[in-house]
């Protein structure tokens, strides 16, 4: 069956590469970790890499990824391009920062010296080597039950990435910034960062993941971030993908939430050739709340696919989801937002919306909101819109002396304004506003 809907052959190269590399991966020989990697490898070999024949990949053709063979980067290649860091950083963003080159930690550009007591921010490889047992219960705990081939691939290699732990009752004001730079060394490199964010009870923190390209070389980033929120913990999570037009990006954000915890996750896709983001949030105890916001910009022939799934297992959970897309040129986007309200999840309060602005006749979006409700006392709403700029508004602005291009730019920024307004870090917000404006420099008139 699996061979019909996916391509095990496409996965074979990665299965073989894992077999060669396994013995030298961080903490190899640790029985539970070996077993976990082997299991993931078996899943990868079995399900293969997804193809458009799978319902969850219907509108995203992975051929552009699978027709190339990407070479996993599993250990440091002494990448040290200070000029690239200089160019990619957001100068005003004060943060505790870890930098990764093709998925591998680069200590030289990282800065996490002044962390308060109870907070750990470090390389996953280092922690695996020094204290593998510390990760045993948490690593892999938030993954979906049936991961797709890319997620399985990431789990089969677990080598480096970021480990973040916010101790109980710690309120961390300064954000933690994880800067992932792809296409650092040569063509067709595969970065496989694996991140784990543990938020202990009553803690509060902000984590920013940014994905950027060092060069214009073709590359694949296949990243998994797991988030575990203990009771009453809260996390502001930002994820910004701004890679080159020749890059491929498959990312997963998988979260487990305990009682009265709160996750605000904001995903912004600014650039990249093909970007697929999977989000899975499990609300496992009463009173947990999640707020997902997203903004995706498409230009050229880019393709952005956002798949989100929020599962309410228990009563009195709240979920909000608000994704917006701005698509120009021949770009394409997919939104699939699924909300499951289990039979035990009474008094669930859930709202979902997806709004799309098409700036070009050739841009396209496939959007699919999906509510599955098995409880009877719930409040759920969802809505979808796909539209163009309001020409009456364009005329109104022009009639006030604002030039046509500027009017369209103003209205497009206004469309994105409510998503950007949720970004609490002014430096990050400014950077993203700039990205939206940049998109519009090349705005194609539909008239």
């Amino acid at each position, binding site marked *: 069956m699996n061979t019909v809907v996916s391509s095990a052959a496409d996965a074979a190269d990665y299965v073989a590469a894992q077999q060669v590399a396994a013995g030298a991966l961080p903490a190899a020989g640790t029985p539970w970790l070996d077993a976990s990697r082997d299991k993931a490898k078996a899943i990868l070999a079995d399900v293969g890499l997804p193809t458009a024949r799978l319902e969850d990949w219907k509108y995203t053709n992975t051929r552009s990824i699978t027709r190339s063979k990407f070479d996993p980067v599993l250990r440091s290649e002494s990448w040290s391009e200070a000029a690239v860091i200089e160019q990619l950083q957001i100068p005003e963003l004060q943060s505790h920062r870890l930098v990764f080159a093709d998925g591998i930690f680069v200590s030289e550009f990282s800065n996490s010296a002044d962390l308060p007591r109870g907070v750990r921010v470090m390389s996953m490889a280092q922690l695996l080597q020094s204290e593998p047992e510390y990760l045993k219960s948490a690593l892999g705990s938030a993954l979906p039950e049936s991961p797709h081939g890319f997620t399985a691939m990431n789990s089969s290699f677990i080598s480096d990435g970021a480990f973040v732990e916010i101790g109980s009752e710690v309120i961390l004001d300064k954000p933690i910034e994880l800067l992932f730079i792809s296409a650092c060394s040569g063509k067709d490199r595969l970065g496989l960062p694996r991140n784990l964010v543990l938020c202990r009870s009553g803690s509060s923190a902000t984590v920013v993941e940014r994905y950027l390209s060092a060069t214009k070389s073709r590359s694949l980033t296949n990243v998994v971030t797991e988030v575990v929120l203990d009771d009453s913990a809260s996390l502001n999570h930002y994820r910004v993908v701004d890679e080159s037009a020749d890059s491929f990006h498959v990312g997963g954000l998988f979260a487990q939430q305990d009682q009265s915890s709160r996750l605000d996750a904001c995903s912004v896709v600014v650039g990249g050739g093909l970007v697929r983001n999977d989000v899975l949030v499990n609300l496992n105890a009463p009173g947990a709340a999640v707020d997902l916001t997203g903004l995706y910009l498409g230009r050229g022939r880019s393709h952005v696919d956002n798949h989100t799934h929020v599962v309410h297992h228990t009563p009195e959970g709240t979920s909000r989801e608000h994704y917006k897309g701005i698509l120009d040129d021949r770009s394409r986007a997919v939104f699939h937002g699924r909300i499951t309200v289990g039979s035990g999840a009474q008094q669930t309060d859930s709202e979902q919306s997806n709004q799309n602005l098409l700036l070009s006749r050739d841009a396209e979006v496939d959007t699919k909101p999906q509510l599955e409700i098995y409880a009877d006392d719930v409040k759920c709403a969802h809505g979808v819109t796909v539209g163009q700029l*309001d*020409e*009456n*508004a364009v*005329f*109104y*602005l*022009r*009639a*006030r*002396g*604002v*030039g*046509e291009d*500027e*009017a369209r730019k*103003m*209205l497009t*920024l*206004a*469309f*994105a*304004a*409510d998503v950007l307004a949720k970004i609490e870090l002014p430096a990050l917000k400014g950077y993203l506003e700039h990205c939206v404006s940049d998109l519009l420099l090349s705005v194609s008139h539909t008239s």
Partner: protein
Amino acid sequence: MLSVTDLDVSVNGGMILNELNLEVQAGEVHAIMGPNGSGKSTFANVLAGHPGYEVTAGSVIYEGQDLLQMDPEERARQGVFLAFQYPVEIPGVSNVYLLKAAVNEIRKHRGESELDAVKFLKLVREKLKLVDMKEEFMHRSVNEGFSGGEKKRNEIFQMAMLEPKLAILDETDSGLDIDALKVVAQGVNELRDASRSIVMVTHYQRLLDYIVPDYVHVLAGGRVLKSGGKELALELEEHGYGWIEDQSAELLETRA
């Protein structure tokens, strides 16, 4: 100031304005009245450059220049202002942001430097008083969630900020209660001066009690059927538009 000659305008192939003529001198206030569907709002929108209307014949000369050749933004920068009948709601763009952009575009066009934040705010506060609006309005999205009266006041406020040479008020009185109408009219009257012309499009005589025009024109079937002084509005009030339309029908018969 404005000279409209034999203007024909159509929308989707249907003729809305038919050989319309109008002369407006600097400092004059003209009222254009007419029944629904007479082409009043079309005329206002054509003057502002709305792309939905096609001018098929005739000319519009504004300050010696061919107005019809100009983009809407160019007209605005040259001093043409349209107060919209239905001001557009623009979520996500604040009033202050729009006004700052508009004021500076117009200043740039005049070869003036951009207003700094302090001077801009001072100007905003001064003009807000004209229409009795609170400063908090400035930080709300343009017209979003505004009541009908607030929207109309906002139009007049924008007009006060942009100081046009030719202001076109499209049914600025519609949807206003008497108190709001007085505020709006007072705002307009304060802006009357010897170098500014105003063209008011309205269905009702009521507005003209508060903004007294120099000339009144009656529009029907896309053309000016009768022009006169302010007393013409009173005749209309007494006899209704039917009186004019009857004359119009006779006229058409004569021509046929």
